[in-house]
């Protein structure tokens, strides 16, 4: 950990009630500091405001109070310094795999030769060699999300934001994708903020897990995951991993019961 990358300073979000209904507090004022090269997962039950927090960091949603700062500069809207991978498949269907990966580079005016070099290296990293000319609809869900990760990383963002990126994938594919993402992070050491409701996923990937409460959301606990990198799927059965998983299970269960009762 070297220095501060992202500061979330008392950021809160209220969705105004339409047509006389009461306003919904999606996110209570939340404060969080993310160190450079951290891999942070935000774990919480659905509807806890974890996606709202991520979207505010991305600049896709506006907070009602507080401030988000990236490298000391306030975030006012979306930008290429914060790459994002969504849960839904958001590849541009009219572009091939390599054109999708090149999209951000093209927007910022990177030359064609430079683009081709960067695209080829990310096609390699996410294991899509041979599929460069395929259209998104010809790809499986896992391949689409690998392309989406490559597309976000090709832009060389300061921070990578992932909003339940593997939520729609089957269990086996999801496990493989987690290893792939972790492998890339271990080599490139990007700062990552990863939202999920999957306990095992949050532990396997993160150096730090933040547990959020049921709506109105706030950060309930901040747990350091002191398992050494590089990690393989084998750590999922170690005593330390299982102990952490048990602890998180208890915390999340309490929140899920509260969320369900609302």
């Amino acid at each position, binding site marked *: 950990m070297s220095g501060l990358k992202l500061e979330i300073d008392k950021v809160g979000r209220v969705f105004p009630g339409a047509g006389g209904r009461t306003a919904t507090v999606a996110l209570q004022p939340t404060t969080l500091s993310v160190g450079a090269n951290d891999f942070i997962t935000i774990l919480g039950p659905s509807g806890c405001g974890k996606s709202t927090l991520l979207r505010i960091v*991305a*600049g*896709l949603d506006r907070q009602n109070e507080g401030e988000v700062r990236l490298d000391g500069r306030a975030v006012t*809207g*979306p*930008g*290429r310094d*914060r*790459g*994002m991978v*969504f849960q*839904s498949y*958001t590849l*541009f*269907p*009219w*572009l091939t795999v390599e054109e999708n990966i090149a*999209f*951000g580079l093209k*927007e*910022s005016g990177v030359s064609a030769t430079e683009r081709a070099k960067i695209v080829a290296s990310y096609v390699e990293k996410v294991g899509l060699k041979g599929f460069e000319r*395929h*259209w*998104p*609809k*010809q790809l499986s869900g896992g391949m689409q999300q690998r392309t*989406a990760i490559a*597309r*976000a990383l090709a*832009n060389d963002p300061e921070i990578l*934001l992932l909003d339940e990126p593997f939520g729609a994938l089957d269990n086996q594919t999801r496990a493989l994708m987690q290893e792939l993402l972790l492998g890339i992070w271990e080599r490139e050491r990007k700062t990552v903020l990863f939202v999920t409701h999957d306990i095992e996923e949050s532990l396997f990937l993160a150096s730090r897990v933040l547990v959020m409460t049921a709506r109105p959301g706030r950060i309930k606990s901040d747990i350091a995951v002191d398992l050494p990198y590089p990690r393989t799927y084998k750590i999922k059965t170690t005593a330390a991993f299982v102990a952490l998983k048990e602890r998180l299970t208890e915390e999340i269960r309490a929140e899920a019961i509260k969320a369900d009762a609302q």
Partner: protein
Amino acid sequence: MFRPLEPIGPGARAALGLAFFAAFVAVWAFATLGGYVSPTFLADPLTMVEQGRLLLVKHNFILDIGMTIWRVVGGFVLAAVVAVPLGILMGAFKPIEALFEPFVSFARYLPASAFIPLLILWAGIGELEKLLVIFIGSFFQLVLMVAISVGGTRRDLVEAAYTLGSSDGGIVGRVLIPANAPEIAETLRLVLGWAWTYVIVAELIGSSSGIGHMIVDSQALLNTGQIIFGIIVIGLIGLISDFLFKAANRALFPWRFA
């Protein structure tokens, strides 16, 4: 055989499609050649073919066909050149939509054929009047349908582009337009079909050339064979233009058909 949504083979599909054409002509031939319908009201298929041949060989009907196609394409291209960009802007920018949408929705219901007397007053019975009829008939439909397609662009694609560094202009040019290009092409195909109706109406009312003009002339001569031939020619041209549009879509938007 009649299980809902059960697909059928391409051979059976073609055979059934042709069979209905054959049945249609057979009923027509039976009614006319069998003497059940007076030839004054409805020519038989053989007379129709013979009259069509005469039209083409002796009366330069091919020039009329060319004239009509030119009018449709001319009026339609003029409408599309203005309507498509305006529709894209309306779909993309809500203030522009708020400004134009109520008026366009109203104007869309004004029947183009009702404008013909007025347009003849303004522009005479020359080519300009024909082009204006088609322009009015297709412009408002095009604007509205394009605006709806563009306005319905998947929001998550727009958001993804923003996080990749797109500017507002980049969103329009590199997300909204390519994402909706196939729908816009489909809208053009559909509205071109309607433009065909308007051109014939315009030619029926005041014209010295074109398929519609030939049809009115033939009515005066009670030549139902020629009228039917003219109608069939319009149908065939429609079929061909549809086919060309579909082929162009396949070539232009391979990602849709992969």
